Protein backbone atom coordinates (compact mmCIF):
# COMPACT_ATOMS: atom_id res chain seq x y z
CA UNK A 1 0.00 0.00 0.00
CA UNK A 2 2.72 2.48 0.99
CA UNK A 3 4.67 1.73 -2.19
CA UNK A 4 1.65 2.32 -4.39
CA UNK A 5 0.64 5.50 -2.57
CA UNK A 6 4.21 6.77 -2.91
CA UNK A 7 4.26 6.01 -6.64
CA UNK A 8 0.93 7.74 -7.18
CA UNK A 9 1.96 10.80 -5.16
CA UNK A 10 5.20 11.14 -7.13
CA UNK A 11 3.21 10.95 -10.35
CA UNK A 12 0.66 13.53 -9.15
CA UNK A 13 3.44 15.93 -8.14
CA UNK A 14 5.29 15.46 -11.42
CA UNK A 15 2.15 16.13 -13.46
CA UNK A 16 1.16 19.24 -11.48
CA UNK A 17 4.72 20.62 -11.64
CA UNK A 18 5.02 19.88 -15.35
CA UNK A 19 1.69 21.44 -16.35
CA UNK A 20 0.34 23.43 -13.40
CA UNK A 21 -3.43 23.52 -13.63
CA UNK A 22 -5.18 22.75 -10.38
CA UNK A 23 -3.28 24.90 -7.89
CA UNK A 24 -3.04 28.08 -10.04
CA UNK A 25 -6.68 27.70 -11.05
CA UNK A 26 -7.90 27.32 -7.47
CA UNK A 27 -5.66 30.13 -6.18
CA UNK A 28 -6.71 32.59 -8.88
CA UNK A 29 -10.36 31.73 -8.36
CA UNK A 30 -10.03 32.40 -4.62
CA UNK A 31 -8.31 35.76 -5.08
CA UNK A 32 -10.77 36.91 -7.74
CA UNK A 33 -13.71 35.88 -5.56
CA UNK A 34 -12.35 37.87 -2.60
CA UNK A 35 -11.95 40.87 -4.92
CA UNK A 36 -15.57 40.42 -6.04
CA UNK A 37 -16.72 40.24 -2.41
CA UNK A 38 -14.63 43.31 -1.60
CA UNK A 39 -16.47 45.38 -4.20
CA UNK A 40 -19.80 43.52 -4.03
CA UNK A 41 -20.21 44.03 -0.30
CA UNK A 42 -18.93 47.63 -0.61
CA UNK A 43 -16.92 47.14 2.55
CA UNK A 44 -13.23 47.26 3.35
CA UNK A 45 -13.73 45.07 6.36
CA UNK A 46 -15.91 42.15 7.29
CA UNK A 47 -16.04 40.50 10.67
CA UNK A 48 -17.30 37.50 12.62
CA UNK A 49 -19.90 35.29 10.95
CA UNK A 50 -19.89 37.27 7.70
CA UNK A 51 -16.09 37.04 7.41
CA UNK A 52 -16.15 33.32 8.15
CA UNK A 53 -18.93 32.79 5.60
CA UNK A 54 -17.06 34.64 2.87
CA UNK A 55 -13.83 32.77 3.70
CA UNK A 56 -15.34 29.28 3.66
CA UNK A 57 -17.76 29.63 0.78
CA UNK A 58 -14.86 30.82 -1.37
CA UNK A 59 -12.62 27.96 -0.26
CA UNK A 60 -15.42 25.48 -0.94
CA UNK A 61 -16.10 26.78 -4.45
CA UNK A 62 -12.37 26.85 -5.21
CA UNK A 63 -12.20 23.24 -4.04
CA UNK A 64 -14.84 22.32 -6.63
CA UNK A 65 -12.34 23.21 -9.36
CA UNK A 66 -9.75 20.88 -7.87
CA UNK A 67 -12.22 18.06 -7.29
CA UNK A 68 -13.47 18.30 -10.88
CA UNK A 69 -9.89 17.93 -12.19
CA UNK A 70 -8.66 15.35 -9.67
CA UNK A 71 -9.17 12.24 -11.82
CA UNK A 72 -9.48 13.72 -15.30
CA UNK A 73 -5.92 12.98 -16.45
CA UNK A 74 -6.13 9.43 -15.14
CA UNK A 75 -9.41 8.88 -16.94
CA UNK A 76 -8.38 10.44 -20.25
CA UNK A 77 -4.85 9.03 -20.45
CA UNK A 78 -5.46 5.51 -19.22
CA UNK A 79 -4.07 5.98 -15.74
CA UNK A 80 -7.08 4.22 -14.23
CA UNK A 81 -6.57 1.11 -16.35
CA UNK A 82 -2.83 1.09 -15.74
CA UNK A 83 -3.42 1.32 -12.01
CA UNK A 84 -6.08 -1.40 -12.04
CA UNK A 85 -3.68 -3.74 -13.85
CA UNK A 86 -1.12 -3.44 -11.07
CA UNK A 87 -1.12 -5.86 -8.14
CA UNK A 88 -1.82 -3.19 -5.55
CA UNK A 89 -4.61 -2.36 -3.12
CA UNK A 90 -7.07 -0.14 -4.98
CA UNK A 91 -7.56 1.95 -1.89
CA UNK A 92 -4.04 3.26 -2.52
CA UNK A 93 -5.52 5.50 -5.18
CA UNK A 94 -8.04 6.94 -2.73
CA UNK A 95 -5.33 7.64 -0.17
CA UNK A 96 -3.00 9.22 -2.74
CA UNK A 97 -5.72 11.37 -4.29
CA UNK A 98 -7.00 12.53 -0.90
CA UNK A 99 -3.46 13.48 0.16
CA UNK A 100 -3.01 15.31 -3.16
CA UNK A 101 -6.28 17.19 -2.73
CA UNK A 102 -5.38 18.12 0.84
CA UNK A 103 -2.00 19.40 -0.37
CA UNK A 104 -3.63 21.42 -3.17
CA UNK A 105 -6.00 23.05 -0.66
CA UNK A 106 -3.18 23.82 1.78
CA UNK A 107 -1.01 25.37 -0.95
CA UNK A 108 -3.92 27.42 -2.30
CA UNK A 109 -4.65 28.70 1.19
CA UNK A 110 -1.07 29.93 1.55
CA UNK A 111 -2.07 32.47 -1.13
CA UNK A 112 -5.80 32.78 -0.52
CA UNK A 113 -5.76 33.50 3.23
CA UNK A 114 -3.38 36.49 2.93
CA UNK A 115 -5.55 37.78 0.03
CA UNK A 116 -8.64 37.42 2.22
CA UNK A 117 -6.94 39.25 5.09
CA UNK A 118 -5.75 42.12 2.89
CA UNK A 119 -8.96 42.55 0.90
CA UNK A 120 -11.60 41.88 3.53
CA UNK A 121 -10.33 41.44 7.06
CA UNK A 122 -8.53 44.72 7.60
CA UNK A 123 -6.54 44.49 10.81
CA UNK A 124 -5.01 41.12 10.04
CA UNK A 125 -4.49 38.12 12.25
CA UNK A 126 -2.20 37.74 15.23
CA UNK A 127 0.12 34.78 15.45
CA UNK A 128 -2.18 33.06 17.93
CA UNK A 129 -5.25 33.66 15.75
CA UNK A 130 -3.41 32.35 12.73
CA UNK A 131 -2.42 29.15 14.53
CA UNK A 132 -6.01 28.57 15.61
CA UNK A 133 -7.26 29.27 12.10
CA UNK A 134 -4.73 26.79 10.74
CA UNK A 135 -6.18 24.10 13.01
CA UNK A 136 -9.66 24.80 11.61
CA UNK A 137 -8.30 24.86 8.06
CA UNK A 138 -6.55 21.51 8.55
CA UNK A 139 -9.67 19.76 9.86
CA UNK A 140 -11.91 21.26 7.18
CA UNK A 141 -9.39 20.50 4.42
CA UNK A 142 -9.28 16.84 5.44
CA UNK A 143 -13.07 16.66 5.11
CA UNK A 144 -13.07 18.42 1.74
CA UNK A 145 -10.23 16.21 0.48
CA UNK A 146 -11.91 12.96 1.56
CA UNK A 147 -15.37 13.79 0.22
CA UNK A 148 -13.87 15.49 -2.84
CA UNK A 149 -11.89 12.35 -3.72
CA UNK A 150 -14.98 10.19 -3.40
CA UNK A 151 -17.11 12.55 -5.49
CA UNK A 152 -14.33 13.11 -8.04
CA UNK A 153 -13.94 9.37 -8.62
CA UNK A 154 -17.69 9.01 -9.09
CA UNK A 155 -18.14 12.07 -11.29
CA UNK A 156 -15.26 11.28 -13.63
CA UNK A 157 -17.06 8.10 -14.74
CA UNK A 158 -19.90 10.23 -16.13
CA UNK A 159 -20.08 12.45 -19.19
CA UNK A 160 -21.56 15.32 -17.19
CA UNK A 161 -18.75 15.33 -14.63
CA UNK A 162 -18.53 19.13 -14.46
CA UNK A 163 -22.19 19.23 -13.50
CA UNK A 164 -22.17 16.19 -11.24
CA UNK A 165 -19.19 17.31 -9.16
CA UNK A 166 -20.78 20.38 -7.49
CA UNK A 167 -24.22 18.78 -7.38
CA UNK A 168 -22.85 15.89 -5.32
CA UNK A 169 -20.06 17.58 -3.43
CA UNK A 170 -21.74 20.78 -2.24
CA UNK A 171 -24.57 19.12 -0.27
CA UNK A 172 -22.14 16.61 1.23
CA UNK A 173 -19.79 19.42 2.27
CA UNK A 174 -22.40 21.65 3.91
CA UNK A 175 -21.51 20.25 7.36
CA UNK A 176 -17.86 21.18 6.74
CA UNK A 177 -18.80 24.76 5.88
CA UNK A 178 -21.06 25.03 8.94
CA UNK A 179 -18.44 23.58 11.26
CA UNK A 180 -15.53 25.52 9.79
CA UNK A 181 -17.44 28.83 9.69
CA UNK A 182 -18.68 28.47 13.27
CA UNK A 183 -15.22 27.47 14.45
CA UNK A 184 -13.42 30.29 12.69
CA UNK A 185 -15.93 33.13 13.20
CA UNK A 186 -14.64 34.05 16.68
CA UNK A 187 -11.12 34.33 15.22
CA UNK A 188 -12.19 36.78 12.56
CA UNK A 189 -13.78 39.52 14.72
CA UNK A 190 -12.61 43.12 14.55
CA UNK A 191 -12.54 43.31 18.34
CA UNK A 192 -9.90 40.63 18.69
CA UNK A 193 -9.79 36.89 18.88
CA UNK A 194 -12.38 35.00 20.82
CA UNK A 195 -11.87 31.48 22.03
CA UNK A 196 -11.83 28.67 19.53
CA UNK A 197 -15.12 26.77 19.89
CA UNK A 198 -13.94 23.24 20.61
CA UNK A 199 -17.41 21.83 19.94
CA UNK A 200 -17.14 22.69 16.24
CA UNK A 201 -13.65 21.29 16.00
CA UNK A 202 -15.02 18.02 17.34
CA UNK A 203 -17.81 18.15 14.75
CA UNK A 204 -15.23 18.62 12.00
CA UNK A 205 -13.05 15.81 13.34
CA UNK A 206 -16.04 13.45 13.54
CA UNK A 207 -17.06 14.35 10.00
CA UNK A 208 -13.53 13.58 8.80
CA UNK A 209 -13.54 10.25 10.59
CA UNK A 210 -16.97 9.12 9.40
CA UNK A 211 -16.49 10.12 5.77
CA UNK A 212 -12.90 8.87 5.80
CA UNK A 213 -14.07 5.40 6.84
CA UNK A 214 -17.00 5.49 4.43
CA UNK A 215 -14.80 6.51 1.50
CA UNK A 216 -12.21 3.88 2.43
CA UNK A 217 -14.93 1.22 2.41
CA UNK A 218 -16.63 2.11 -0.87
CA UNK A 219 -13.80 3.45 -3.03
CA UNK A 220 -12.96 0.03 -4.51
CA UNK A 221 -16.46 -0.23 -5.94
CA UNK A 222 -16.17 3.15 -7.65
CA UNK A 223 -13.29 1.82 -9.73
CA UNK A 224 -15.30 -1.18 -10.97
CA UNK A 225 -16.59 -0.95 -14.53
Amino acid sequence: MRRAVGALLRKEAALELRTPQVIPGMALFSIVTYVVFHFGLRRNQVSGDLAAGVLWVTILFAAMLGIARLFVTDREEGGFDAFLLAPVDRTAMFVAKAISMFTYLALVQVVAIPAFVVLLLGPGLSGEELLKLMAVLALADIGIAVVGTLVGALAVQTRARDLITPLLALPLLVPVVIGAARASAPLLTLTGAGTLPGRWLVVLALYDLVFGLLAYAVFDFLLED
Partner: protein
Amino acid sequence: MTVDATPAIDLRGVTRRYGDRTALDDVTVALEPGRTLVVFGPNGAGKSTLLRILATLLRMHGGTAKVLGHDLKSEDWKVRGRIGLLGHEPLLYRDLTVRENLRFHARLHDVPLARVEELLDEVGLIARADDQVHTLSRGLVQRAAVCRAVLHDPEVLLLDEPRANLDPNAAAAVEPLIGPESGRTRIITSHDPAGGLAEADLALGLRAGRTALLAPAADVTAAMIGELYR
Protein backbone atom coordinates in the same frame (compact mmCIF):
# COMPACT_ATOMS: atom_id res chain seq x y z
CA MET B 1 -4.88 -28.87 -30.51
CA THR B 2 -5.02 -30.70 -27.17
CA VAL B 3 -5.95 -28.67 -24.15
CA ASP B 4 -3.75 -28.98 -21.09
CA ALA B 5 -5.33 -29.95 -17.77
CA THR B 6 -4.61 -26.45 -16.44
CA PRO B 7 -4.88 -24.09 -19.38
CA ALA B 8 -3.45 -20.59 -19.03
CA ILE B 9 -6.73 -19.24 -20.39
CA ASP B 10 -10.01 -21.03 -19.89
CA LEU B 11 -13.19 -19.25 -20.97
CA ARG B 12 -16.57 -20.97 -20.80
CA GLY B 13 -19.69 -19.27 -22.07
CA VAL B 14 -18.34 -15.80 -21.45
CA THR B 15 -20.96 -13.12 -22.05
CA ARG B 16 -20.72 -9.36 -21.71
CA ARG B 17 -23.37 -6.75 -22.41
CA TYR B 18 -23.27 -2.97 -22.75
CA GLY B 19 -26.81 -1.94 -21.97
CA ASP B 20 -29.05 -3.81 -24.43
CA ARG B 21 -26.18 -4.70 -26.77
CA THR B 22 -24.41 -8.01 -26.29
CA ALA B 23 -20.72 -7.45 -27.00
CA LEU B 24 -19.65 -11.03 -26.23
CA ASP B 25 -22.07 -13.92 -26.38
CA ASP B 26 -21.25 -17.36 -25.00
CA VAL B 27 -17.58 -17.44 -25.96
CA THR B 28 -15.71 -20.61 -25.01
CA VAL B 29 -12.01 -21.12 -25.62
CA ALA B 30 -9.02 -22.64 -23.83
CA LEU B 31 -5.32 -22.02 -24.38
CA GLU B 32 -2.32 -23.90 -23.04
CA PRO B 33 0.53 -22.04 -21.32
CA GLY B 34 3.10 -20.59 -23.71
CA ARG B 35 0.74 -20.80 -26.69
CA THR B 36 -0.72 -18.02 -28.80
CA LEU B 37 -4.36 -17.35 -29.60
CA VAL B 38 -5.13 -14.95 -32.42
CA VAL B 39 -8.54 -13.32 -32.45
CA PHE B 40 -10.01 -12.06 -35.71
CA GLY B 41 -13.19 -10.17 -36.33
CA PRO B 42 -14.54 -6.96 -37.80
CA ASN B 43 -14.75 -3.76 -35.77
CA GLY B 44 -17.24 -4.16 -32.94
CA ALA B 45 -17.01 -7.95 -32.98
CA GLY B 46 -15.97 -8.06 -29.32
CA LYS B 47 -12.19 -8.51 -29.59
CA SER B 48 -11.23 -5.62 -27.32
CA THR B 49 -14.00 -6.52 -24.87
CA LEU B 50 -12.56 -10.03 -24.65
CA LEU B 51 -9.09 -8.64 -23.89
CA ARG B 52 -10.45 -6.25 -21.25
CA ILE B 53 -12.27 -9.09 -19.51
CA LEU B 54 -9.08 -11.15 -19.46
CA ALA B 55 -7.20 -8.11 -18.15
CA THR B 56 -9.70 -7.92 -15.23
CA LEU B 57 -10.77 -4.45 -16.37
CA LEU B 58 -14.31 -5.55 -17.31
CA ARG B 59 -16.67 -7.86 -15.49
CA MET B 60 -18.47 -10.69 -17.23
CA HIS B 61 -22.24 -10.90 -17.20
CA GLY B 62 -22.28 -14.63 -17.81
CA GLY B 63 -20.02 -17.67 -17.97
CA THR B 64 -16.73 -18.34 -16.23
CA ALA B 65 -13.20 -17.26 -17.01
CA LYS B 66 -9.99 -18.56 -15.52
CA VAL B 67 -6.60 -17.02 -16.16
CA LEU B 68 -3.54 -18.92 -14.91
CA GLY B 69 -5.92 -21.15 -12.97
CA HIS B 70 -7.66 -18.31 -11.11
CA ASP B 71 -11.34 -17.49 -11.50
CA LEU B 72 -11.67 -13.89 -12.63
CA LYS B 73 -14.88 -13.40 -10.63
CA SER B 74 -13.46 -14.36 -7.26
CA GLU B 75 -9.67 -14.24 -7.60
CA ASP B 76 -8.96 -11.45 -10.07
CA TRP B 77 -6.48 -9.92 -7.62
CA LYS B 78 -4.30 -13.02 -8.00
CA VAL B 79 -4.07 -12.47 -11.75
CA ARG B 80 -3.20 -8.76 -11.74
CA GLY B 81 0.50 -8.29 -12.05
CA ARG B 82 0.81 -11.55 -14.01
CA ILE B 83 -0.78 -10.17 -17.16
CA GLY B 84 0.38 -7.43 -19.49
CA LEU B 85 -2.03 -5.44 -21.64
CA LEU B 86 -1.07 -3.63 -24.82
CA GLY B 87 -4.23 -2.04 -26.12
CA HIS B 88 -5.18 0.78 -28.44
CA GLU B 89 -4.37 3.28 -25.68
CA PRO B 90 -0.74 3.33 -24.53
CA LEU B 91 -1.74 3.88 -20.86
CA LEU B 92 0.99 6.49 -20.53
CA TYR B 93 0.64 10.03 -19.17
CA ARG B 94 1.18 12.44 -22.04
CA ASP B 95 2.86 15.15 -19.98
CA LEU B 96 5.34 12.82 -18.28
CA THR B 97 8.48 11.63 -19.99
CA VAL B 98 8.83 8.05 -21.17
CA ARG B 99 11.23 7.34 -18.31
CA GLU B 100 8.93 8.93 -15.70
CA ASN B 101 6.00 6.88 -16.98
CA LEU B 102 7.91 3.61 -16.91
CA ARG B 103 9.36 4.33 -13.48
CA PHE B 104 5.83 5.01 -12.23
CA HIS B 105 4.71 1.61 -13.50
CA ALA B 106 7.86 -0.04 -12.15
CA ARG B 107 7.06 1.29 -8.68
CA LEU B 108 3.45 0.10 -8.92
CA HIS B 109 4.61 -3.38 -9.93
CA ASP B 110 7.55 -3.39 -7.50
CA VAL B 111 10.02 -3.86 -10.33
CA PRO B 112 13.65 -2.62 -9.98
CA LEU B 113 14.18 0.69 -11.81
CA ALA B 114 17.14 -0.86 -13.65
CA ARG B 115 14.60 -2.89 -15.65
CA VAL B 116 13.28 0.39 -17.10
CA GLU B 117 16.70 1.29 -18.52
CA GLU B 118 17.16 -2.23 -19.82
CA LEU B 119 13.86 -2.09 -21.74
CA LEU B 120 14.43 1.43 -23.05
CA ASP B 121 17.72 0.27 -24.46
CA GLU B 122 16.19 -2.87 -25.92
CA VAL B 123 13.50 -1.04 -27.92
CA GLY B 124 15.81 1.80 -28.97
CA LEU B 125 14.14 4.49 -26.91
CA ILE B 126 17.00 5.42 -24.61
CA ALA B 127 17.79 8.63 -26.55
CA ARG B 128 14.17 9.81 -26.26
CA ALA B 129 13.59 8.58 -22.71
CA ASP B 130 13.45 12.07 -21.26
CA ASP B 131 11.02 13.39 -23.85
CA GLN B 132 7.42 13.91 -22.86
CA VAL B 133 5.13 11.30 -24.37
CA HIS B 134 3.02 13.87 -26.23
CA THR B 135 6.09 14.94 -28.22
CA LEU B 136 6.70 11.43 -29.61
CA SER B 137 5.43 9.93 -32.85
CA ARG B 138 2.80 7.20 -32.62
CA GLY B 139 5.40 4.57 -33.39
CA LEU B 140 7.66 5.71 -30.56
CA VAL B 141 4.70 5.86 -28.19
CA GLN B 142 3.86 2.29 -29.15
CA ARG B 143 7.43 1.22 -28.33
CA ALA B 144 7.07 2.87 -24.92
CA ALA B 145 3.72 1.14 -24.45
CA VAL B 146 5.36 -2.22 -25.21
CA CYS B 147 7.93 -1.49 -22.49
CA ARG B 148 5.09 -0.65 -20.11
CA ALA B 149 3.22 -3.85 -20.94
CA VAL B 150 6.19 -6.19 -20.34
CA LEU B 151 7.91 -4.22 -17.57
CA HIS B 152 6.84 -6.72 -14.89
CA ASP B 153 7.63 -9.75 -17.05
CA PRO B 154 4.01 -10.97 -17.30
CA GLU B 155 3.17 -14.60 -17.94
CA VAL B 156 0.19 -13.67 -20.12
CA LEU B 157 0.26 -10.95 -22.75
CA LEU B 158 -2.94 -9.42 -24.12
CA LEU B 159 -2.09 -7.66 -27.35
CA ASP B 160 -4.61 -5.56 -29.26
CA GLU B 161 -3.13 -5.09 -32.74
CA PRO B 162 0.32 -4.74 -31.20
CA ARG B 163 2.27 -3.86 -34.32
CA ALA B 164 0.00 -1.04 -35.41
CA ASN B 165 2.03 2.14 -35.95
CA LEU B 166 5.36 0.29 -35.84
CA ASP B 167 7.80 0.49 -38.75
CA PRO B 168 9.69 -2.73 -39.65
CA ASN B 169 12.71 -1.79 -37.52
CA ALA B 170 10.57 -0.99 -34.50
CA ALA B 171 8.52 -4.15 -35.00
CA ALA B 172 11.75 -6.14 -35.03
CA ALA B 173 12.97 -4.37 -31.88
CA VAL B 174 9.87 -5.27 -29.85
CA GLU B 175 9.60 -8.81 -31.26
CA PRO B 176 11.69 -10.49 -28.52
CA LEU B 177 9.42 -8.85 -25.93
CA ILE B 178 6.00 -9.59 -27.38
CA GLY B 179 6.67 -12.13 -30.15
CA PRO B 180 6.39 -15.92 -29.99
CA GLU B 181 9.95 -16.28 -28.70
CA SER B 182 9.03 -14.32 -25.58
CA GLY B 183 7.69 -17.63 -24.27
CA ARG B 184 4.58 -15.97 -22.85
CA THR B 185 1.00 -17.06 -23.30
CA ARG B 186 -0.38 -14.54 -25.79
CA ILE B 187 -3.80 -13.47 -26.95
CA ILE B 188 -3.51 -11.24 -29.99
CA THR B 189 -6.20 -9.41 -31.90
CA SER B 190 -5.42 -8.87 -35.54
CA HIS B 191 -6.87 -7.86 -38.89
CA ASP B 192 -3.94 -9.40 -40.74
CA PRO B 193 -4.82 -13.05 -41.58
CA ALA B 194 -1.38 -14.06 -42.85
CA GLY B 195 0.62 -12.43 -40.07
CA GLY B 196 -1.80 -13.40 -37.32
CA LEU B 197 -2.08 -17.04 -38.32
CA ALA B 198 1.69 -17.35 -38.79
CA GLU B 199 2.44 -16.62 -35.17
CA ALA B 200 -0.57 -18.32 -33.57
CA ASP B 201 -1.38 -21.83 -32.38
CA LEU B 202 -5.12 -21.30 -32.18
CA ALA B 203 -7.45 -18.96 -34.07
CA LEU B 204 -10.72 -17.52 -32.82
CA GLY B 205 -13.06 -15.63 -35.10
CA LEU B 206 -15.71 -13.38 -33.61
CA ARG B 207 -18.69 -11.89 -35.38
CA ALA B 208 -21.16 -9.71 -33.47
CA GLY B 209 -19.79 -11.12 -30.22
CA ARG B 210 -20.36 -14.77 -31.12
CA THR B 211 -17.81 -17.42 -31.95
CA ALA B 212 -17.81 -17.84 -35.72
CA LEU B 213 -14.54 -19.76 -35.95
CA LEU B 214 -12.40 -21.72 -33.52
CA ALA B 215 -9.68 -23.95 -34.91
CA PRO B 216 -5.95 -24.63 -34.81
CA ALA B 217 -4.25 -21.83 -36.70
CA ALA B 218 -2.59 -24.32 -39.05
CA ASP B 219 -6.03 -25.43 -40.25
CA VAL B 220 -7.33 -21.93 -40.91
CA THR B 221 -7.00 -20.25 -44.27
CA ALA B 222 -7.05 -16.57 -45.18
CA ALA B 223 -10.30 -17.23 -47.02
CA MET B 224 -11.93 -18.46 -43.79
CA ILE B 225 -10.83 -15.27 -42.06
CA GLY B 226 -12.15 -13.25 -44.99
CA GLU B 227 -15.59 -14.82 -44.43
CA LEU B 228 -15.68 -13.22 -40.98
CA TYR B 229 -15.49 -9.76 -42.46
CA ARG B 230 -18.31 -10.22 -44.98
